[in-house]
């Protein structure tokens, strides 16, 4: 009797401990973000105050007005161009990475070919190389090709960063779909192509959406390579644009935080819109027949 009670209380203690740990982790992860968001709504002075002020005492939209050039003191930061660059580069590279990921993932899942294991391993190893390690060679090649400071240059880089991941994730999804579904569709009158679009694609949609979100976020947030390969408003992306707030002796923390919010919001909206797919994507939600 007492043993049962004991094991129950020890279970409760364990659960409480786990909850506390999860909460702690969440706090550690969220506080910097929260700090950035809060700081976007207060003047620079308050950000640097010691001891720190948590809740903004005089909340203000001045920082946003400033970046958009609406305030009294003009800050010449072309946020609009950066935003458009980021959007074009992230969307285009995501779409291309998804197209390649779908073709590649399908091929890995469905076909046998020579060197399959080797190619797959190679893709994963490539993914393990930190992008920044490639920045010098990429810089040299890109400048020879004349695509430094172009959107195309960054798009190519981001596609190659994302393709291993999209192939890997989408392969896992196609692998889960029984081959007999496509075969049944072909017996039912479909070409292989139709069977793919009408049966296999809809069933792998969660995985494809998840791969798309990850690819988009990677491109949207990437800083290291973009800072090397871009120069001007024709190709600079939002994360690179953050550097515009640093001058030789001062850093406009408030402006930077406001811009960070502008970077975060679209990512949050996107994640929110596809969160159902994301969860299915991350847990490989079953599509058994």
């Amino acid at each position, binding site marked *: 009797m007492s043993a049962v009670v004991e094991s129950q209380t020890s279970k409760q203690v364990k659960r409480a401990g786990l909850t506390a740990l999860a909460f702690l982790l969440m706090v550690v992860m969220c506080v910097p973000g929260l700090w950035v968001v809060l700081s976007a709504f207060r003047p620079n002075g308050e950000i640097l105050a010691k001891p720190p002020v948590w809740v903004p005492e005089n909340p203000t939209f001045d920082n946003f007005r400033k970046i958009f050039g609406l305030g009294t003191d003009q800050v010449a930061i072309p946020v609009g161009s950066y935003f458009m660059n980021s959007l074009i580069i992230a969307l285009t590279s995501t779409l291309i990475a998804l197209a390649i990921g779908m073709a590649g993932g399908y091929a890995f899942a469905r076909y046998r070919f020579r060197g399959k294991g080797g190619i797959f391993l190679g893709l994963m190893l490539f993914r393990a190389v930190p992008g920044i390690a490639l920045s010098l060679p990429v810089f040299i090649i890109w400048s020879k090709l004349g695509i430094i400071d172009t959107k195309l240059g960054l798009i190519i880089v981001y596609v190659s960063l994302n393709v291993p991941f999209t192939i890997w994730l989408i392969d896992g999804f196609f692998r889960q779909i029984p081959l*007999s579904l496509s*075969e049944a569709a072909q*017996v*039912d*009158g479909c070409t292989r192509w139709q069977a793919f679009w009408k049966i296999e694609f809809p069933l792998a949609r969660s995985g494809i959406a998840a791969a798309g979100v990850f690819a988009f976020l990677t491109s949207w947030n990437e800083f290291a390579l973009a800072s090397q390969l871009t120069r001007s408003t024709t190709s600079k992306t939002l994360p690179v644009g953050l550097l515009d707030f640093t001058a030789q002796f001062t850093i406009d923390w408030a402006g930077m935080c406001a811009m960070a919010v502008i970077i975060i919001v679209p990512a949050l909206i996107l994640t929110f819109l596809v969160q159902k797919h994301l969860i299915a994507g991350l847990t490989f939600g079953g599509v*058994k027949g």
Partner: protein
Amino acid sequence: MAEITLEKVVKKYGAVNVVHGIDLTIAHEEFVVLVGPSGCGKSTTLRMIAGLEDISGGIVRIGERVVNDLPPRKRNISMVFQNYALYPHMNVRENLGFGLKIAGEAPDSITKRVDEAADILGLTPLLDRTPAELSGGQRQRVAMGRAIVRRPEVFLFDEPLSNLDAKLRGQMRAEIKKLHQKVRTTVVYVTHDQVEAMTLADRIVVMKDGRIEQVGTPMEVFNHPRSTFVATFIGSPPMNLLPATIDGGAVRLADGTVVPVPERLRAFTRDGQKVTLGIRPDDISPVGHGLSQDGPGAEVGMVAELAEPLGMESLIYTRLAGQEVLAKLYGPRIVQPGEALIFRMALDRAHLFDAETGLSVRAD
């Protein structure tokens, strides 16, 4: 007319040959069952007929057409898969109508034909459910509905019942049989279960290691197995096989027990031939408790080692010439282990196989 002909059909995976030149003609509206142990090439053969597997050699015809190079959609077939292969993102109505929709059928005609098929299979109340919301038996029925709704010339079944529990399997077996009587088409049905083969088939094709071992009606295959393989594969419990020698018009077993050579096989044996005597458990019974007590027979004394009462009959495990032999007792009598009984073998239903080739001595 959808006759199916296979001529020297071969399937190779790389260097591995899994189907070794099969010749088979399946008549219009015939129900043919391919049966054999797992891995003998039944599914591969079926999938070559379906067009889901390339044909490495030989010719496959459906009707007049050579279909070797036609994709599945051009073969006018439908297929029921072992795992049913229902489209998980479509409800039952959409699953049933999918083929018609792809064929460009008008929506109201699709509705009409889906309703008809659903009616035949008792699926009408389930039309709005998704496959995930169906039981195994219902999924099986939807898979069959999807097969009949397009009115193809040929139905192909690949182990359609093997995912069901025993009771449901019996029910669905009967339904498939009824369905074939209602919707007359040519059927090729693959199973490893000899009971399904016996009950469903117009003709059974017994396969072994990528080759056809025997083709015949269920009764032919049961009563005249061409080899020891067919003899033990078809029929349950399997036929007893006892090594023996032909000795002066008699069959001499390993321990010297002698029984006469069955009359109808006498012409096919020669003195000194090493043979295998095959006799089904149903044809060995304690005197007075067997199926046929008249006709030619031989009596031997054996000791029952174990008896399994099955209600109206008992299965008796006994021993002859040092080998375990199964016998059957008909009637409610209880047999005790260790009980010595006189058994009667119905020799007119016994078989002799050549010991070397394993083929029936009658086979040419």
